[in-house]
């Protein structure tokens, strides 16, 4: 509460902490009550990032319409008492690969003129970070780290990256905020989404409508869709990332072997020299002059591990998003049949009530209804977003998903599903129960206890264990 009031006060101030250089007159303009929450020197560490509703929609739109798989943009806003408020954003133009120098120049020009323009209409014009849209949550890559490293020098608090997960077409968007640190590459900062009161009021009128049952934004059931396209893609990308990692690992191993060989050579040479000079000393001669070993043997520099680290991060992110998708998929399969059963119950009840309802209806209506029931072509889907089973698509997935189960995540998802499945039991008992899917449960019971015996790696990763000099332990990474 105090923070939001402070925010309101700060908004009326003449943009005190906009620039990192402290300006004396603005400094005096800050009242005593505000001096603690406004830090000119950026000393209060960031504890939270607050994203405006408008920025959320802007990022979403940009991510969807962007020509390439990634979309970049800048975030504008200001920080107050450890909370970074992002109030606006704009997209950066997309450049096709080549002419790096020119494109970066034109981007800079674009950025400058956009900021100037926004300032004229009283928008926030201080850049606090940037956003990036990614596919399935794997956002670790070289460009991101590089860009963030540049921003870290220039911006207060080192800048913030908002990562928007794209690709889960109907899933929830994953928005996370990060700031760059040394040890873990990127540090995650808690993110909040806020809508200003005007927007809240407007959205509320849109959702409630004018009492006619018609609203601009209705309820959404898109999450109930079976949609499995994302899953195959996810698996493909995991395999790809593992492949890349394998190659990178091979390179590293090769380079380190080379280093070791060169070093051994240098060492043996040094040892030989020492022996010789010791022998000369013993014979009473002057020892051999010191030589620069480094000049004789070119020991290559230690290779950078950043790339493999980033790839590991990607694999981790893909794995996480796969776990989430599979978890929800499992819940959908378990719980949706229960809802279908309720549909049937409803249908039976309805069939019984048709007679009662018919008494109020004209014969014309009745005939139309009968026709509708008989003729499947007249059927019409009132709501296009209803969930529907797609048995055909599962058939196409089966060859790809050939993966050994891990116990921990599957049990967590089933426990999640428990409250939803247990709830409708009393209602089904009141009415003629639908044909229970008895064979299904048997099949489940037969297939479910399929534990992996000791091996905690998925089967496709076992192939990589053969490689020389690499071994996998079952410890999880500190990502």
């Amino acid at each position, binding site marked *: 509460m105090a923070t939001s009031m402070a925010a309101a006060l700060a908004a009326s101030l003449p943009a005190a902490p906009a620039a990192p250089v402290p300006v004396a007159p603005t400094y005096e303009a800050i009242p005593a009550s505000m001096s603690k929450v406004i830090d000119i020197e950026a000393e209060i560490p960031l504890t939270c990032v607050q994203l405006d509703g408008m920025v959320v929609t802007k990022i979403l739109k940009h991510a969807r319409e962007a020509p390439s798989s990634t979309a970049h943009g800048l975030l504008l806003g200001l920080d107050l008492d450890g909370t970074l408020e992002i109030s606006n954003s704009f997209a950066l133009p997309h450049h096709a690969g080549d002419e790096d120098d020119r494109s970066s120049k034109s981007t800079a020009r674009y950025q400058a003129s956009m900021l100037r323009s926004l300032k004229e209409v009283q928008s926030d014009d201080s850049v606090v970070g940037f956003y990036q849209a990614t596919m399935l949550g794997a956002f670790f890559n070289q460009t991101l780290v590089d860009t963030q490293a540049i921003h870290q020098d220039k911006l207060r608090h080192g800048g913030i990256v908002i990562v928007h997960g794209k690709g889960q077409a109907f899933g929830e968007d994953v928005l996370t905020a990060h700031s760059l640190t040394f040890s873990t590459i990127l540090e995650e900062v808690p993110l909040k989404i806020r809508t200003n009161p005007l927007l809240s009021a407007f959205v509320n009128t849109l959702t409630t409508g004018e009492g006619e049952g018609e609203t601009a934004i209705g309820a959404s059931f898109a999450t109930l869709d079976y949609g499995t396209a994302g899953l195959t893609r996810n698996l493909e990308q995991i395999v790809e990332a593992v492949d890349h990692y394998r190659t990178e690992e091979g390179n590293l191993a090769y380079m380190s072997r080379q280093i070791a060989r060169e070093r051994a050579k240098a060492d043996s040479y040094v040892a030989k020299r020492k022996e010789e000079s010791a022998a000369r000393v013993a014979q009473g001669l002057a020892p051999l002059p010191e030589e620069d070993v480094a000049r004789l043997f070119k020991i290559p520099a230690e290779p950078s591990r950043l790339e493999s680290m980033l790839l590991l991060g990607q694999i981790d992110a893909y794995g996480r998003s796969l776990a989430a998708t599979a978890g929800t998929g499992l819940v959908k399969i378990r719980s949706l049949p229960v809802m279908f059963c309720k549909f049937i119950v409803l249908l039976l009840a309805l069939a019984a009530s048709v007679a009662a309802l018919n008494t109020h209806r004209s014969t014309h209506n009745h005939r139309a209804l009968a026709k509708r029931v008989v003729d499947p072509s007249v059927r019409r889907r009132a709501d296009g977003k209803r969930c529907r089973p797609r048995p055909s698509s599962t058939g196409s997935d089966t060859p790809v998903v050939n*993966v050994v189960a891990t116990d921990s995540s599957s049990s967590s998802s089933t426990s999640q599903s428990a409250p939803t499945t247990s709830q409708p039991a009393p209602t089904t008992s009141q009415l003629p129960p639908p044909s229970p899917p008895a064979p299904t449960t048997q099949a489940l019971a037969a297939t479910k206890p399929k534990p992996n015996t000791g091996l905690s790696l998925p089967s496709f990763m076992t192939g990589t264990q053969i490689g020389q000099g690499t071994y996998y332990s079952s410890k999880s990474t500190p990502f």
Partner: protein
Amino acid sequence: MPLGPSSSAVHITNHAASAANAPRTPTSVTVHPVALFSILDHYLRRTDLQDRVIGTLLGTRTETEVEVRSSFAVLHSETSEQVAVDMEYHRAMYELHHKVNPKEVIVGWYSTGSNLNTYSALIQNFYSQETAPNQAIHLAINTGVEEGEQSGVKAYVSSPVGVFPKPENCLFVPVPVELQFHDAERSGIDLITKTAAAPNSTTSQPISDLEILEQSIVTVQDMLERVLAYVQSVLSGEKKGDPAIGRYLMDTLGASTDDLEKGGFNSSLQIDETGYSNDLIPLQPRPVTSRSIL
């Protein structure tokens, strides 16, 4: 999805006149949430002297439909004698937006508040030049801040009025306006509606997929329970059945009847259950940091 109260205006398109090369008058307008939210944000950031704010609408148009995809604020000043729009700013801003999104062109302009006056006609005249040969649309957003006014969005196209058309005279013809967004953006809109409904207007992120799924399932279950309660009360004679509701239910639920008769429901369930639980058990690859290097 209509955005405001429906109007009783009749849309007569003169096909004979449009047979010539002149483009047809737009008959419907759709607005993307980004445009709408930007306008609201702009209104919040107006100065004390400004009564209303105006800006440019960007989007795409087909023959009869205009799709407003985004918007940006434009400086303007209104006094009792004159109205001025910063054309240079408008041009510069359009160029910038055009670089990022080349598909979006100027389709019209917006203003807050729902009063149309002479200045509106003048600004409309200016924007008509920008969008020529197509007609410019005007979006009037009532933010609902002033007392006694309902918030909503209205769209207009203009047509000249009088024997000798003058720029300050024009007739604003209402056009139906709807909110439109892509399915992929649905989740974001849900997020904002949920945030707007929250008591302190904030929600923390990220929300896991399972939570969202649970919410959807609970909503569907609530709906089913409501319908079931209604049907049962009709059956027991407590309530008088509404034929309209009965018909609607029949239409909705009738869609799955023949599947049930053929046993397709059961078999599809079986395929799903066994297939999925075999293959889709979540997997968690565990990359490893400790390794030996030869």
